[in-house]
Structures are given as structure tokens and as C-alpha cells.
């Protein structure tokens, strides 16, 4: 007999198990596996249910819609491993001069450019973290002003197209992928501007954060400054054009666009003479590693949300919310609060999978613009990349940062940027047109 318990106890038990196992330090995927075993045993008739659970894992990740995740990561890895990303950053480095916190600003600018070439927040953060962080620390930048912008701009990769997550969100919600990709551009750009403003302001108020570079950058004349940008950065935008253009002009589905993006990245790198088999192999294996890491968690969390549903926890919570009779504004605030809470300890795709079945009917019922809602969801997910205890980018940063950087330092570095992203969120709540104006232009 499947156990029947009050929905809130089921919710507490299931979430408690996952979070407990995660906190102990078990790999996240295994925390989900463990909770799933317990949940299926309790709510799906013990052994019988358990003996039919494994096939669910098979179906959960043998999905074509998950392909762009790997391929958008591969795009980023190709540019990273071949050194093209470094050249691009070096070119941007040369463009920007005489700004307080210059290298942090370079990181934000470089990260934003790279956001338009890579759909992977992970690749973005890993590149900037490994390229720029050692240099910044060596030059005496405070770790928090060095790491904060790198992590924050990593998150922009999921707002500015191509974005693996935006594609997933829109296709799961059955709304226009094209609209969502385009809708992310302005909020993403706004965020980058805000980050730069913050860094400059902080470094001006407190010059100890980022030492002024004494080695005076040789005053480069116009063309000498711009030449690397024109040669090493501008051609990279063909990749952006291939991916976003093919989706925009209905030539390709997102899976196909991501495949084209990889081919374009390979061709561009080959044109620069940077493509070798060892580099390509490294890009492929790194992609495999990240893809396995992500999809293993997706497998665990998809089955987890199925168990939550079977236990009655999901519908219990939804019915509870339904009795509150909310206004659209209140509903939006509540949804964002739920996402930010879940985002503290959950990966983006699990968050998405757990909340979409509630949020979409709620939004449709209240007559909310769903593109607006999904952009808000993307920002909430972006914030969750930075919120402890489980924030993917915090861990990526820990992975690429020099030994001796503590996790608590990384948390502290992320904090102001979380606040800035929340600010963008507030702006979007007050002025939804920041999100929905661009897509409305192309109809």
C-alpha cells in the first residue's frame, strides 16, 4: 500500500532528505537518488515501485530537447580550449583603459561578449575565472572585487542568447523560444551595465579594492587599440549570427542551431589556425564532463519531482496557493520568492521542472504575460547560481580559483551582485516592457 500522508509532511520529508544529504557533502545527483529511493519506497508500494523506477531515469534524459545543453557548452569549450576566448579577452583588455577597477570591468565586458557566443554559464565562468582571476589577484585586486564580477557575468550567459536554459524553459512551457531568447537581451545588457557601474563606483570610493595600474598602458593610438578587437572579436560574432539568426529566421530548431553553432565555432577557430586535434579533444572531453555532471542531476531531480507529485506534496502546495486569491503582482512576487528559495539548494533545471506546472496555469489564469514571467524566472535562476549553499557558479569559481580562496570569501564576493540582480528584477516587475518590448518589435 502506498503510504498516504499529509502533503506538507511529504514535502518536508522529501525536501529534507535531499537537502540533508546534500549538506553532508554527498554529490547532488546521489542526494536525489537517495531521496528517490526513500520516496518511491514510501509512496509507491516499496519494492514493487523501486523495481520500476530505473526505467524512469532512462526516459528522463534520453530527450532531444536536452541536446542543446551539451552543444551550447561545446561552443564555449571550443572557443576556450583553442585560445580564441583569450585572444578576445586580450583584445577587450586593450580597449578599456583608465577606469577604476579596470580588470573587473574588462571581465564584465569580456563576459558579456562571450555570453553571446556561449550558452553555458559554466564555460563562461570557467574561462573568465581561469584567464583573469590569477592576473587580478597577482596585481593586488581584493578577491571579492575580482571574483564577484566574474561569477555575476557568468550568469548573464543564460539571459543573452544563445542560452541552453532559455531554450529548455520555453520549450517545456510550449511558448515561443524565439521570443524568450530575444526578450533576454535587454535585461542581460542592463545587468552588465549595472555591474560595471557598481564596480567603478566601489573602486572609486575604495581604491584599495583594485590598485591603479602603475605600469602605464602605453598610450595606444586609435587603430592600435582597436585592431585586436576588429581582428579577434568581431569575426566571432558570425557564430552569434549563425545561432541566433538561424533561430530567429526560422531556419533551424534550437537543437539544430546549437549544432550549427558548434560547426561555426570549429570553422572560425580553424580560420585563425588555432584548431588542433588535442585542443578539440580537450573541448569534447570537458563538454562530456560538464554534460554528464548536469544530466546526472537532471535524471535525479526529474524523478524526484515525479515522486513529489505522487506523494501528493505538489498538488497539496498548489491547492494551498489557489486558495489565496492573489493579484498578478502578488502572484509574481510569490513565484519569485519560491524560486529564490528553491534556488538556494537546487539546480536550475530542477527548479524549472518543479515550478512550471504551477506557475504556468497560475499565470494564464491571472492573464500575466508569460514571456515576462519566463524572463523573470531566468533572472531568478541566474540569481540562484550565486546563492549559497548550492550555487553552481560558486562551485565553479571554487574549482578555478587559486588554492587558499575559501568558499566563504566566494559567497561574500557574490553577495553585492545578487543584490544588483534583485534590483534588475524589481525594475522588470515595475517595467515589464524591458522584457517584452524587443520581442513585440519583431512580430
Amino acid at each position: 500500500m502506498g503510504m498516504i500522508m499529509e502533503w506538507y509532511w511529504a514535502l518536508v520529508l522529501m525536501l529534507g532528505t535531499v537537502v540533508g544529504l546534500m549538506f553532508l557533502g554527498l554529490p547532488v545527483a546521489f542526494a536525489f537518488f537517495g531521496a528517490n529511493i526513500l520516496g518511491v519506497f514510501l509512496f509507491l508500494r516499496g519494492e514493487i515501485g523501486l523495481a520500476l523506477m530505473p526505467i524512469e531515469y532512462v526516459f528522463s534524459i534520453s530527450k532531444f530537447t536536452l541536446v542543446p545543453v551539451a552543444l551550447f557548452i561545446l561552443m564555449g569549450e571550443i572557443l576556450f580550449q583553442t585560445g580564441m576566448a583569450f585572444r578576445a579577452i586580450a583584445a577587450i583588455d586593450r580597449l578599456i583603459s583608465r577606469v577604476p577597477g579596470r580588470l573587473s570591468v574588462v571581465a564584465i565586458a569580456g563576459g558579456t561578449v562571450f555570453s553571446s557566443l556561449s550558452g553555458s554559464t559554466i564555460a563562461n565562468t570557467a574561462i573568465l575565472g581561469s584567464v583573469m582571476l590569477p592576473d587580478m589577484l597577482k596585481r593586488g585586486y581584493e578577491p571579492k572585487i575580482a571574483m564577484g564580477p566574474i561569477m555575476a557575468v557568468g550568469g548573464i550567459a543564460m539571459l543573452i542568447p544563445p542560452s541552453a536554459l532559455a531554450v529548455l524553459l520555453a520549450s517545456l512551457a510550449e511558448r515561443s523560444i524565439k521570443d524568450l531568447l530575444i526578450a533576454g537581451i535587454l535585461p542581460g545588457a542592463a545587468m552588465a551595465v549595472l555591474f560595471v557601474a557598481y564596480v567603478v563606483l566601489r573602486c572609486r570610493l575604495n581604491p584599495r579594492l583594485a590598485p591603479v595600474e602603475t605600469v602605464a598602458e602605453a598610450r595606444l593610438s586609435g587603430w592600435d587599440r582597436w585592431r585586436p578587437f576588429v581582428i579577434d572579436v568581431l569575426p566571432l560574432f558570425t557564430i552569434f549570427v549563425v545561432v541566433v539568426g538561424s533561430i530567429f529566421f526560422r531556419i533551424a530548431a534550437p537543437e539544430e542551431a546549437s549544432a550549427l553553432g558548434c560547426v561555426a565555432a570549429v570553422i572560425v577557430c580553424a580560420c585563425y589556425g588555432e584548431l588542433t586535434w588535442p585542443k578539440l579533444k580537450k573541448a569534447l572531453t570537458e563538454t562530456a564532463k560538464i554534460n554528464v555532471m548536469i544530466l546526472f542531476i537532471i535524471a535525479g531531480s526529474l524523478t524526484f519531482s515525479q515522486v513529489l507529485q505522487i506523494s501528493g506534496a505538489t498538488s497539496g502546495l498548489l491547492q494551498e496557493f489557489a486558495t489565496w486569491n492573489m493579484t498578478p503582482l502578488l502572484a509574481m512576487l510569490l513565484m519569485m520568492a519560491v524560486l529564490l528559495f528553491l534556488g538556494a539548494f537546487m539546480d536550475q533545471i530542477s527548479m524549472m521542472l518543479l515550478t512550471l506546472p504551477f506557475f504556468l496555469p497560475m499565470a494564464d489564469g491571472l492573464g500575466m504575460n508569460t514571456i515576462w514571467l519566463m524572463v523573470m524566472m531566468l533572472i531568478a535562476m541566474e540569481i540562484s547560481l550565486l546563492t549559497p549553499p548550492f550555487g553552481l557558479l560558486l562551485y565553479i569559481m571554487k574549482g578555478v580559483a587559486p588554492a587558499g580562496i575559501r568558499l566563504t570569501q566566494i559567497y561574500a564576493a557574490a553577495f553585492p551582485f545578487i543584490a544588483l540582480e534583485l534590483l534588475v528584477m524589481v525594475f522588470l516587475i515595475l517595467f515589464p516592457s524591458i522584457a517584452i518590448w524587443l520581442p513585440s518589435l519583431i512580430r
Partner: protein
Amino acid sequence: EAKVLQAAACFPQGSFFAKRFEAFIDTVNMRGKDVVQLNYVGGAPAIGSPFTLVQKVAQGVYDISSCTGAYYQNVVPEADAWKLLERTPAEIRENGGWALMTEIHRAQGLVPLARFNYGMPFQLYLGEGHKIDKPDLSGLHLRVAPIYTNFFKAMGATTQTSNLDQVYTLMENGTVAGYGWPITGLRPGWEKVTKYRVDPGFYDVDLELIANAGAWDGLSQQARDIIQKAALEYEQQAVVEDAKAADASRAKQANEFEIITFTGADAEKWLQTARDTGWAGVEETSPENGPKLRKLFAKE
């Protein structure tokens, strides 16, 4: 103390294709107060893959479910024949068709109790720029469910499967020229990417009420009567209501889509190819029962 059975659907909770099952559950729970109760855990995919649900019923994870034949032919290959029904459920209960299906299901530990849909055909829907004027789909790349893959292929189309979430995107991007879907229950938004409907419709949307044989046999006679009676009421209701729903949907779509209608020999070719390819599929996996079922199910 009422006996509690676990109930689950192959379609999302609250969705069009789960509604009748959900109403049935409410009816049983009302009438069966101290005898039998159905605890509804929800519908696929929220509770797991739709393709594993009936297997779970067979193994006793759930006791009773509503599912379409296409989703559980991995357990009962002949379930594919449910879609090919051209007689009313009442007629096959008379002519031995239902009894044969029961025998086939019981061999896998399942019992079919009722058919919850009847009289709702599948249609071919096409996007902008893909108008056809004869029963020939060559050159068209279509999004299909396995239900009608063979039919569309036999008509010359190339096909691909995808999950439902992707249909909108595939159509929006022009990756596929069209898709198959029942006359009703199109997802919101699909009307924006659809331009044509091809008539006549073919096959019949099927949803069966399937119970675990052990759990069913283990119920008291009183409990079985309550469930079976309610199930038959909904089956009879389906025959009336689905015809109405199909008509209502046709009226609505008449304003949304351009209707391409085959007549005479074209219509005959369209329908006969559908029928032949459908039964060929059943006979391939079940050479013994396939021809028997065709005699009892088809009207030719």
C-alpha cells in the same frame, strides 16, 4: 473500512484527456464511500513516463489507470488495435471483441474495464505553405506519434517523433510541415502555427480504463460492481459526448483553419491506407490475434 486503490492517468492531471477519468474517480469515490475508494496520484509525465504507467499497473505499483493503447503496447502489443475500432464499444462487447481483448490483457496481469473515448478521429494538421490537394504526403516532413507513423509514411511523408512540448517549436521553426492530432484538444498556441486541417479524420482516439488483474479480482463483488457500473456509464456517455465535442471543435476550427477535404476515391484511398497500415502494424507484432481483432473491430 473502504478498500483504497491507487489510480493514475497517462495524461497530465486536469488535461483534456484525463478529465473523464477524473470524473469517473469522483463518481466512484462518492458511491463507494465505505466500500471502495480511488486515490488519484496524478497523471504522466508528472508522475513518470506515460510509457511505463500501464507496466506499473501490471506489476501492481498502481491498481487502476486510464491510458491510450499506443502508450502501453510495450506491455500489450495488441493494445495498438484500440485506435482502429470502427464499431461502438457496445458492439464489441456484443460480438466478442471485448472478451478477446480481456483475454489478451489478462495474460499480462491486466483487465480492460471500459473505453473512455469514442468517435473522436485523428487529423492531419499542416502549417503555412504546405497545402495539399490529393492524398499524397510526399515531400512533407511531419511530427508524428507512433499511432499514425506508418500511415503517414505509407502516404509518402517523412516523419519524426518529439515530445509534445516541442510541437509548437517545430512548427514555428518550420522544422516540420505538420503534425497529427485528434480533432480536439489542441494545445493552446498551436492554432498560431497551424494553417490547414486535412479531412477526413482517421482512426479513433482511445482511452481505456485498465486495472491490475490481481487487485481487480481481489475486490469484493460489491466494490467491483460499483466500479464497473460507473465505468460503463462513462463509456456510454463518451459515445454521446465525444461526438458532440468533435462537432464543436470542427465548428471552432472552421474559423481558425482552412479545411482541405478529400472526397470520393481520394477519401477512400486515404481511409483505406490508414486502416491497412494500422492493422499491418498490429499483425506484425501479433500475427495470431491481429487478424481476429480486425474482424471484430473493423467495419469493412
